């Protein structure tokens, strides 16, 4: 047992020594960028799920020091945009199949500030490497339903808003290529703190996530972003 503790102590001391060396090296480098603007790419998960979304996701990252940065993530657009037809009486001899048509649009935005700590910097370059951090996520959605029944020729409309504030953690991996272009892959897990809806609407679970728990209390977000680094 003592041997194990001794080995852990040596490893920890080595790690903290190498970290302090690394910070020194980073601070001595002049050519480091201070800001990054990133755009979110469509994630493979979204492509596989074939979801109907039209979202633009942007992120701004600003270096605080060699190991930390502040990030503001923002996405806006149509989080749901689809038409759903349901046909009836397939085998009845009529001129046209009766159907119902539901048009659904959920538009809104997410704003997610987060604080990033680079656990490990690639090539001693700041804002490049493996990071972890904490994040808040506020989102607001407006959902609009348009429902048409061809049998009654009646259209009904309905809409409501849903907003939510949540807190979570982020794990990230960022590469800086030629001191200009960044590729950032990150994964976040959020927990709901507060939510509200209007017009007796149903709470809308996070729409920029690839996983939601059954009760919508937790969800996970997965993103790949392409960025442009600038400033010194």
């Amino acid at each position, binding site marked *: 047992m003592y041997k194990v503790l001794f080995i852990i102590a040596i490893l920890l001391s080595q790690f903290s020594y190498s970290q302090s060396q690394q910070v020194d090296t980073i601070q001595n480098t002049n050519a480091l960028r201070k800001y990054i603007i990133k755009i979110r790419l*469509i994630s493979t998960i979204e492509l596989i799920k074939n979801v*109907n979304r039209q979202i633009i996701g942007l992120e701004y990252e600003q270096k605080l020091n060699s190991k930390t940065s502040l990030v503001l993530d923002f996405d806006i657009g149509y989080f749901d*945009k689809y038409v*759903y037809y*349901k*046909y009836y009486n397939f085998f009845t001899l009529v*001129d046209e199949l009766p159907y119902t048509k539901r048009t659904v649009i959920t538009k809104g935005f997410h704003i997610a500030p987060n604080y990033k700590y680079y656990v490990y910097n690639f090539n001693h370059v700041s804002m490049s490497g493996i990071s972890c951090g904490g994040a808040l996520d506020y989102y607001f959605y407006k959902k609009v339903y348009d429902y048409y029944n061809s049998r009654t020729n009646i259209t009904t409309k309905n809409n409501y808003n849903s907003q939510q504030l949540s807190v979570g953690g982020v794990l990230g991996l960022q590469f800086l290529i030629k001191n200009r272009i960044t590729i950032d892959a990150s994964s976040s897990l959020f927990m709901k703190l507060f939510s509200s809806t209007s017009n007796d609407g149903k709470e809308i679970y996070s729409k920029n996530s690839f996983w939601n728990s059954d009760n919508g209390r937790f969800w996970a977000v997965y993103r790949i972003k*392409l960025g*442009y680094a600038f400033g010194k």
Partner: protein
Amino acid sequence: MKNKACKILFLIILVVFFSCNKENKYKMDNLNHNTIMILGHRGMGELYKYPGNTAEAILPVIGIGADGTEIDIQMTKDSVLVLYHSDLLDARTTCTGKISNKNWSEIKNCNYNLTWALVPLCTVDSLFGLIENLNDYYFSFDVKLDGDMVDNHEYKKTFLRAIKAIDDKYNMSENIIIEGEKDLLLLGRSLGLTNKECVVRAGPIEKSIEYAVEYNFFCVGAETDVSEAIVKDAHNKGIRFMVWNAKNSIGNFEAIDKNVDIIQTDAPIHILQQLNRYDYEYQIP
């Protein structure tokens, strides 16, 4: 350099926006008012986590927007219709033997061989009892007869009467398609069944079409690799065409391209999404 980066970002924004704009671009020409009837294959299809022919696989396919599903039907000794595909219970469940040799009470506690969930055998009666607005959905019964039955004719009649009992109980004769050989379908007709009849397993598909014309059957069935000309020939004779073995998106597209009337698909999510018939409100369990 800044200009270049701006151009790249602009291009990405364009791609993101226009790649998501999915309009219904499929125009069909068939006897269902140019609309394909989408049935799941045994529910959500072969790749779904729950085994086919169970309520666990069938309720989701209805939930996501399919018009119904194909199911394999077998009959117990006491005339209960059970959803099951294989000849022997041993193949997929904790029980042994043939369904046709057992009473329902003997097999009602059989579960599928899964380590992570208890999924029991399901009867047509119990399944229909679970579905809201049942008469809005369609079911294609693939009748799995036990070829070893001694009195085959009487056994078939009992089987068909059990289907009629379900028809009558749930008022589903318009919504249940019976897949079977010519003789079985004609026997059903003689017993007063008014279901839609789909002739299958008649040898070459041309023979099925010939029977369908001769006996005024509602449709013929074949695999998705059937030619477009054959489908058109059936349509010209007033016969609807049902295909199965659409394992994935390629099979779905093949069926759409050939203007078939009914598809049994193992990839229901794909085809429903392509045709704007996927209900995104439904959460698949």
